[in-house]
């Protein structure tokens, strides 16, 4: 039996992954395991940009995958970037094993708004399903309600659901 590994990366204890676990299992029909991996987060830090390179984190996440891991999702609170873009909410290997999501820009405080824990959790679930969907080979979906719809700013995320549309589900063999 293989599992989706949920890997908190230097995540504060207050972040509860229970709801995320349930949702990922329901969406993809695969059981999850929550485990800590040894990740050198400071090594991925770019002092000029004051951000963390998501590709380097991803590389560490998938370096030694457990034998029963079909997918690995890293969850971090640091601000992520890829070289050409100012930031990313997450990164995934298309049709691969690994993905990473960041809570940093999913929190209302980042935008100067009052903290909203429920909204942040909701956004995290959507982004986790989105990035994991890519690891299952799904491309961005044009259906605005689908979790695989591309989101380039946080309001985009709020407009979509945490579920896959029927086309995306069929594409990866889910009923």
């Amino acid at each position, binding site marked *: 039996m293989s599992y989706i590994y949920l890997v908190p990366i230097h995540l504060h204890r207050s972040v509860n992954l229970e709801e995320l676990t349930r949702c990922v299992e329901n969406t993809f029909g695969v059981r999850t395991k929550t485990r800590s991996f040894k990740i050198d987060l400071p090594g991925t830090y770019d002092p000029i940009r004051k951000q963390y390179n998501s590709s380097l984190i991803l590389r560490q996440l998938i370096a030694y995958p457990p034998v029963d891991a079909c997918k690995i999702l890293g969850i971090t609170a640091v601000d992520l970037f890829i*070289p*050409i873009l100012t930031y990313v909410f997450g990164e995934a290997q298309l049709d691969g094993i690994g993905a990473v999501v960041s809570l940093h820009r999913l929190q209302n405080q980042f935008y100067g708004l009052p903290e909203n824990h429920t909204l942040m959790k909701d956004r995290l679930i959507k982004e986790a399903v989105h990035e994991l969907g890519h690891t299952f080979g799904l491309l*961005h979906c044009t259906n605005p309600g689908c979790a695989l719809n*591309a989101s380039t700013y946080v309001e985009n995320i709020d407009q979509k659901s945490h579920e896959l549309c029927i086309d995306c589900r069929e594409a990866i063999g889910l009923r």
Partner: protein
Amino acid sequence: MKPSDMGILIVDDEASVRDALRKWFMLDGYRVDTAEDASRALQMLQDDSWDIVLLDIKMPGMDGLELQRRIKQIDKDIITIIITAFASVDTSIQAMKEGAFDYIIKPVDPDDMSHLIRNAVQQRRLLTENLKLRQQLEEVSVPDEIVGESPAIKQVMARVATVAQTDSTVMIRGESGTGKELIALAIHSHSNRRYFPMITINCGAYTEGLLESELFGHEKGAFTGAMYRRRGKLEMADKGTIFLDEIGNIGKKMQMDLLRVIESRQFTRLGGDKEVSVDFRIVSATNRDLEMAVKDGSFREDLYYRLNVFSINLPPLRERKSDISLIARFFMKKYSRSMNKNVTDISPETLDMLMKYNWPGNIRELRNVIERAMVSVQGSRIETGDLSFPFQPSLAPSGDEDLETVEKNHIKHILARSGGKVAQAAAILGISRLTLYNKIEKYKLKK
């Protein structure tokens, strides 16, 4: 068009930028590849087709600006987007002036990047679609009815090709039915005015007053019955071509008016006082001997020289008989399609008959003969019996055939016309049935 039909090439000497962009675009389903320098990019542009190229302005060796110039030489419609650091914005602006679609300053906001690529994809799709539509338009607008392999028609087509791209005034000379309007259409279709209309007016078909109104249009109330303002043919031909057919048949006043319009490209509508400016090319046609008309004073000399800048003479069909078979087959195929008949051939005897006819009505007459034959043909081949000529065919046009050959051909023709009925054929020929049987036997003809 699916995203996978759109090819994006990323050219950057930084592997991390190449890799990040490649992954980013792949998630949208685009076909993506990368090149580490300009020479590799040029190689890839030769090996495959790419719609959008993102290129770094600063690269070792050939820089992005030079690479863009080379790309535009390969295909000016390829969308180029410049990747730049803040320090080289000036160069990026130069790149924009040289045809770049846009530029991005590293690092770029994901939303801006997303919009930029969406717009670039949209632009490329429009360009491709536009190109495709133009090609389709070209295919339908270029007349394919000019058929022939004879030196005479080849020479005509060479002259059409010579003059089409220029804006010169053309006069087409030729007998009635030789296809003067088709030649005018060919000139228009191969000219830079082809996306605008070609307006035809048969000058011989109108009285002088009516022709004036047709050409120049009229204002409301210009004459009894002019209830609305109406644009004339000259206005309709703006940016296109006006084809003045039977130009030799216009009266003195119209000759003068036309001369003024040709010189100034301006006129007033009937009953109006406002000058209307138009931009058109004139192609005219006549079967009249205009030089003679100039000599006897019935056609203005100055107008003659204005219209006859470049002249194309269409040979009559009797002077390009080697084309008859091709033209006849062309019309056979055309009417097979339109009449939904499966006629695929013309018998050698029929072709022989077509070749021997003098064709006073030229191609128009040949077309009508084939059309009539197509109506009556029963099988898959046009036979002599299917032909009917408006004028009695001249079976000995060369005049050097002996009496026996003429007799044989004539009997053959009458037999075909009467559907092989000997009694009927004998009655037409004014001989007895027995005599006709003897002749059939003598000339080994089929009944």
